[in-house]
């Protein structure tokens, strides 16, 4: 793509002996939409705060356009931020909120007015300039926060889970909106989220993080189709992750059967993790199946059914548009490109078995879920 703008070199961050970032290396190109994706506590927000200048790394360098900026305070960086809870100034109206940065830079009244009004139309808030910010809905406040950052014409815009407090429909609209604004303005967006769908929808590059380390960097398609380890495979979409043995190039064994695959470069008889995406599995009558299992549960999801199938005690998730009854015996076939092989990692064996699967399961495990729900209550009309 285009030229490199920001580079993080061997970035480490420790809070009271707790390592939050562990040797993070990353470069970010000009005009790129890059997303830092990971569960809460993975270090993504810390990374963003270091780029913004609000946190000083324990060790490692941040360079901007080739210049080291570790010690440059935030007000001297050509970077602006959209904060998680917007952080609008309550004592100023919409116009003055957006004009704040320009007023600080002592720009003439005439130009301030032009640029603020232009920004208001970019975020579709024409006519709102004299509203008080506490009279705006969540989505409108969000737009003001974006306009307030962009009006300064930064080289980079940092966004810290900006859609987290919005309800689902509004969030989808804002995703498109953000992508449009990014392309229209042609500036670099660095976006932090724990929502994998959001990351895949908007980004040019996705950086998956966990436990302070970068797990994988790639395009949304790469990340989804070629996850590097069980963590990435599980975090990005749903997956069945099985233990397998790589016999030779293009041949993998699991469930005591050999399958053809497209992966190579492993040692002979190397133990590996096998990923099979639930939507790639084809259900056939039992006599034609490579593997035969029993349907254990079915959940209607709208577009498809989440069908849990028991293969000799190991449960797979299969997404299919055809309905199969609980107790029905079915066969499956797998094409070589449905099978993805990963090296064993510290995450092996942690994910993939759907024995405990239920619709509520994800929500219980997501600490942000309940919180977001409450905030949705007073958002948008």
């Amino acid at each position, binding site marked *: 793509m285009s030229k490199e703008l920001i580079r993080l070199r061997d970035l480490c961050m420790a809070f009271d002996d707790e390592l939050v970032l562990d040797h993070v290396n990353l470069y970010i190109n000009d005009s790129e939409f890059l997303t830092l994706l990971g569960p809460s506590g993975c270090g993504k927000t810390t990374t963003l705060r270091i780029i913004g200048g*609000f946190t000083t790394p324990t060790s490692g360098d941040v360079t901007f356009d080739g210049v080291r900026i570790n010690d440059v305070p935030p*007000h001297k960086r050509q970077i602006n931020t959209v904060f998680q809870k917007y952080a609008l100034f*309550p004592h100023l109206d919409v116009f003055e909120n957006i004009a*704040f*940065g320009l007023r600080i830079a002592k720009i003439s009244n005439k130009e301030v007015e032009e640029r603020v009004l232009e920004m208001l139309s970019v975020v579709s808030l024409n006519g709102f300039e004299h509203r008080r910010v506490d009279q705006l809905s969540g989505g409108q406040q969000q737009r003001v926060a974006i306009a307030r950052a962009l009006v*300064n014409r930064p080289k980079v815009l940092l966004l810290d889970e900006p859609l987290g407090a919005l309800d689902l429909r509004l969030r989808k609209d804002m995703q498109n909106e953000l992508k449009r604004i990014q392309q229209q303005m042609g500036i670099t967006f660095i976006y932090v989220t724990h929502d994998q769908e959001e990351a895949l929808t908007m980004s040019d590059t996705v950086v998956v993080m966990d436990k302070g380390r970068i797990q994988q960097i790639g395009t949304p398609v790469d990340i989804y189709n070629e996850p590097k380890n069980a963590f990435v495979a599980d975090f990005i979409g749903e997956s069945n992750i099985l233990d397998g043995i790589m016999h030779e190039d293009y041949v993998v064994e699991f469930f005591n059967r050999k399958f053809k695959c497209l992966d190579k470069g492993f040692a002979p008889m190397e133990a590996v993790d096998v990923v099979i995406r639930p939507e790639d599995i084809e259900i056939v009558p039992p006599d034609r199946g490579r593997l035969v299992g029993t349907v254990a549960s079915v959940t209607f999801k709208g577009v498809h059914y989440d069908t849990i199938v028991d293969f000799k005690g190991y449960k797979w998730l299969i997404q299919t548009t055809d309905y199969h009854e609980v107790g029905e015996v079915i066969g499956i076939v797998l094409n070589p490109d449905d099978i993805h092989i990963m090296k064993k990692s510290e995450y092996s064996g942690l994910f993939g078995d759907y024995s405990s699967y239920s619709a509520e399961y994800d929500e219980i495990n997501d600490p942000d879920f309940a919180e977001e729900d409450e905030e949705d209550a007073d958002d948008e*009309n």
Partner: protein
Amino acid sequence: MKAKSPVLSRIFNALVFVFLYLPIVVLIIFSFNDSKSRTVWSGFSLHWYTELFHDEEILSAFSTTLTVSLLASLIATVLGTAAAIGFFSMRRRPRQLLMTVNNIPMTNADIITGVSLMLLFVFTGNILGFSLGFGTLLVAHITFNIPYVVLAVMPKLRQLDPNLGEAALDLGATPWQAFWKVLMPELRPGIFNGMLIAFTLSIDDFVISYFTAGSEVSTLAMQIYAMTRKRISPEVNALSTILFVTVLVLLIIVNLREVRQQNLKDRQNRALKRDAAR
């Protein structure tokens, strides 16, 4: 909780108020008494008030009180606000520790604060060559005012969006500009309340002033005390009345402001809810 006998509870309440306020009411009434007697009412007059304003000692005590209260509350407001912001930006443990340290002087007996400050001033005064007087009185007032300012500003800080200051920095403001342009407008009501409370406390303080002012300077409260010991004159009633009314008015202002801010917030929230419902 519901009282079993409303009559009894009302009588009890009435008694509480009688014991609390009757002495003050009597004092105020007798400050308008025509004669010198403190037991017999002999007609309305402003005699003792005019007397008061011709008494050199009292007038000088009055100006001392006003100067000390104004200066002390202003300086304590600046220091207390800075301290509150400092405490707030700390991590939880040290912050809690410092808040406890901050709160102890408020629950501490005035006399202990007074005596210990006096000892400190006498001790350092011996070394550095100053004696008790207006300076030490002022320092003492600033000292006992600061914790109240911290306590008034803290809740406002807690209501702030934690990223507000950072947002200002992010938009190019220097830390100083961020404070004045963004934090200050949000904190102002709390700071102002803190200053009023500090002023009120300074005006009516007796014990701490008594120990730290030395023999040259005296405040109104100290003057009243001295008057009751020397010659018993109804001027004391008049002076006490003025002091009582001043403090009362200030406290009412503080409370009204708090109520009004609360109402404003409620109204905004309601408006927002209405918007959201539409």
